[in-house]
């Protein structure tokens, strides 16, 4: 069907180059992290785990990792039910104001993150939430909400609300019918939303730069500060681990989605 016209060949070549440009930075990190060299040389002179050792034996990096994982987990635990409840209400309610609320919930995607970060910093400074765990978690819940709402709303679009009506007419109350009938059918979109919220919290840097401090600094803030000063291959090791973690999460979520839908 498609003949190899010059235009077609040019299309292939350009696309291939663009894809290489997209992929190379992701692939370059792992070899650097396994290199024995202090400075970047490519290809690496010899294989070594010293940067991983340095990461795992440094209490500051370990503390930051604990903070990141705790924040990300708590973010999912809070943002997922909040987002699911909101998405359910938005899709079921005929109230006019829901349109406005729907838009409000997407604000974290619209407002430039630097503005959010500075604004939260000022508010937190007044109420004493700067450099605290609750402050960090709350900010990440806000940033993760749109992902849950978008994902669950998409899931609810293919769900027929009449099914829930049937369950209720058979005597289930609203809550039970939601958990027994609705939730199982939108489960994969809930999981996807939760995974997005987790990854967003794990990667979040800019807000953390402004509002986190002391012993409650996430990994990304420490990495940012380290990167500003010098290129330390320890960061390549951390980056490789972070990338592997988010890939595995995404793969797990999409495998789930395939199985259930």
């Amino acid at each position: 069907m498609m003949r190899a016209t010059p235009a077609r060949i040019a299309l292939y070549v350009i696309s291939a180059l663009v894809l290489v440009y997209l992929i190379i930075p992701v692939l370059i990190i792992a070899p650097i992290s396994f290199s024995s060299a202090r400075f970047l040389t490519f290809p690496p002179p010899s294989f070594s785990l010293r940067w991983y050792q340095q990461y795992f034996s440094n209490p500051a990096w370990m503390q930051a990792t604990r903070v990141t994982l705790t924040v990300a987990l708590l973010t999912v635990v809070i943002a997922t039910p909040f987002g699911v409840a909101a998405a359910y209400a938005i899709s079921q309610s005929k109230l006019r104001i829901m349109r406005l609320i729907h838009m409000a919930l997407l604000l974290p995607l619209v407002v430039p993150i630097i503005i959010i970060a500075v604004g939260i910093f000022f508010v937190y400074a007044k109420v004493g939430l700067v450099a605290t765990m609750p402050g960090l978690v709350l900010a990440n819940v806000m940033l993760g909400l749109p992902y849950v709402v978008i994902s669950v709303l998409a899931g609810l679009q293919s769900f027929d609300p009449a099914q829930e009506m049937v369950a209720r007419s058979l005597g289930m109350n609203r809550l039970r019918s939601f958990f027994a009938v609705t939730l199982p059918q939108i489960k994969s979109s809930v999981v996807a939303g939760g995974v997005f919220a987790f990854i967003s919290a794990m990667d979040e840097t800019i807000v953390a730069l402004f509002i986190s401090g002391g012993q409650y600094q996430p990994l990304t803030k420490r990495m940012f500060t380290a990167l500003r000063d010098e290129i330390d291959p320890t960061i390549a090791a951390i980056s490789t681990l972070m990338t592997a973690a988010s890939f595995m999460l995404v793969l797990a979520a999409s495998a789930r989605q395939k199985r259930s839908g």
Partner: protein
Amino acid sequence: MTTSVPDPSQKHQRREHGLMLALVSPALLVILALIVLPVGWLAWQSIYNDGFTLENYRRVFTEDVYWRSFALTFEISLAVTVIALLLGYPVAYLANSVPRGWSILILSLVVLPFWTSVLVRAYAWLALLQRTGVINQLLRYLDVISEPLALVHNTFGTVVATVHILLPFMVLPLYASMQKIPNDLMQAGASLGASPSLTFFRVFLPLSLPGVLAGCTMVFVLCLGFYITPELLGGGRTVMVSMLVSRNVELYNQFGAASAVAVVLLLGVLAIFCVVSRFISLDRVLGQK
């Protein structure tokens, strides 16, 4: 008809409304407390300092540092958007025109970088572009250059890394809009004797314009507020608006000025969304993220 007797269905409806509002309220409260309130605070702070003042805005609009930063941010965002469009369109086109298995592969490669942190990718570009980095070493090895090129810690490095980060936001809406173009139209064009390039420019390209607009809006707007990449790869010389905000807060304690810059940036972004929403639905722009 008497109106004093409460209508049971009305009562039921009111309960239903109450329940729905209760369900949406936790999420809404978080948003109100952590976006609406802080942004309101910024706006207030930009005009109030022991009395109303427009001093901050006067500075932002007259002082050179601010002007240059706004101009630079605009230029970089424009450049990034155009480059992303030129690079993204062929990829989206290819993904749209090959069999399903291939298009899934192409799109996975496009979204793969999505799942690596922006920080990680900034690190990768530093490793690739610095004076002793991979690219310079390769070019010297191949005898193309004798002195290492300054590829990073300048605007060039910032643009390369920023395009890389924003490209998926261009390709996905482009692909989505191309998917909606019926294949018959192209065949109709061909059967009427038009050359492939003519059908492309007269039929396909115009029909893909909603995707172009959605992608360009997203990339441009995200780029306006970019912070990490210019901060790490710009070498201190590429001061984009976001860095102006953070420096005014962190280094100079100029909260009023920082707020005024933030407000101007936000108004710019909202204005763009307002204009764009007259042509395409905003869901289309935001849905990709």
